[in-house]
């Protein structure tokens, strides 16, 4: 049996909660960085480098992709580490907002016009509809972040037994 505020919480009935230490959360966040880095930075940069090496103009600079990717990684890592705290909600909003801005920025670059080396032919590929569909994900993320922020303000730590069951 554990005590949380004025409420006695029997661990076997509610599950209780056990917040991982800061060091453990940092370690897990670092491990989560590996696939995230691959998806958000390494893979796009490799694809752009491959295309650029064949003399095809890039729709977006490699530096921009790296910058957006690193910002998203940093915010995502901070969000994970802050999960037991009241900063989790605002950071969730920040991550999703940044992802939404990234997609909006990419949307301004659509359609991508590619001039075939030699200059006689050009191809324009539009991807606006796909990006607009993809914006659903960060849009939901923003709503989720706002809900968590509201929940934490209304009843601090109420979600912890469900986020960190013992």
């Amino acid at each position, binding site marked *: 049996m554990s005590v949380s505020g004025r*409420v006695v*919480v029997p661990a076997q009935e509610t599950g209780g909660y056990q917040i991982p230490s800061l060091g453990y959360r940092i370690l897990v966040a670092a491990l989560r960085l590996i696939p995230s880095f691959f998806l958000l930075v390494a893979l796009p940069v490799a694809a752009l480098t491959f295309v650029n090496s064949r003399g095809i103009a890039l729709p977006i600079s490699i530096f921009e992709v790296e910058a957006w990717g690193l910002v998203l990684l940093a915010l995502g890592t901070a969000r994970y580490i802050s999960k037991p705290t009241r900063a989790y909600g605002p950071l969730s909003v920040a991550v999703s907002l940044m992802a939404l801005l990234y997609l909006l920025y990419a949307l301004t670059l659509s359609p991508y016009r590619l001039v075939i080396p030699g200059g006689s*032919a050009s*191809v324009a590929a539009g991807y606006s509809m796909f990006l607009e569909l993809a914006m659903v994900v960060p849009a939901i993320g923003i709503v989720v972040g706002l*809900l968590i922020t509201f929940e934490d303000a209304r009843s601090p730590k109420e979600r912890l037994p469900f986020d960190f069951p013992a």
Partner: protein
Amino acid sequence: MAALLVPRHRRPPAIYRVARALRWVSAIVLIALVIFAGTVAYSAVEVARSSVQSRSLSASFASNGTVAVAGSFTLSNPGLYPIQGVTLTARIANSAGVFLGAFGVGPNDIAPSTTGVFPIALYLPVSASGPTKSLLTEDQYLAVNAWGNATYAYLFPLSVSLSETRYWGAPFEGFHASVGTPSGGGGAITVPIVVTFSDHASSPDVGTLAFVIESSNFVDCGGGSFPLDVPAGSLYDHTDTATLSPGCSPSGGQLLATYSSAGGTTPLPPEAIP
């Protein structure tokens, strides 16, 4: 103390449950989008590898005073998603920028794992007068501008534009017909007719070449015809004889030649007689 116990199987707060449900929805949408994007990229590469192929393009004289360029092109879609609304429009102009003709195909859909065949029918006017006459007798480069549109995998509109010059080999390149000095007397007066040209087209000139000698006051002085069988890419030099009508002088007139083939009759540019 017992009153402070939290009930068994306590449910998470409503807001938390909503947030969790939304997170699930978000994750499912994200995974679906990643899978969709991956399969679209894979399919697009497969389509790009198959590339557009044209086949059986042929040019021939048509009955309406045109050269008909007919054939088809195929577009394979080995990918997983349809190519919808495929349209192609092309516009041809001669070296002077004069519009010659255009054609359009589509819109057509190409289902996954199928091949779309698009017929092409382009008619280039080759009349002896007007701005397009040079197609008959002058090799040149034609300006070809083409535009294509399609939508791939429901969400990705594509447009292609192509500008290039195509060499046009004239079927009667350097056509020249000259009337020689009349000979004979008393009875029939004959004149030699010398016809020279090169067939630079991809098809042979097979048919009949008829000619009429017209005086300066547009009186038909006589004429003739002879069969023509000139292989593509070869030089033609032929001398024929025409019998003039009595009292009709070709001097200052013109020689009118007409090429007749299975496709129809095409007048050639008139040649002035000195």
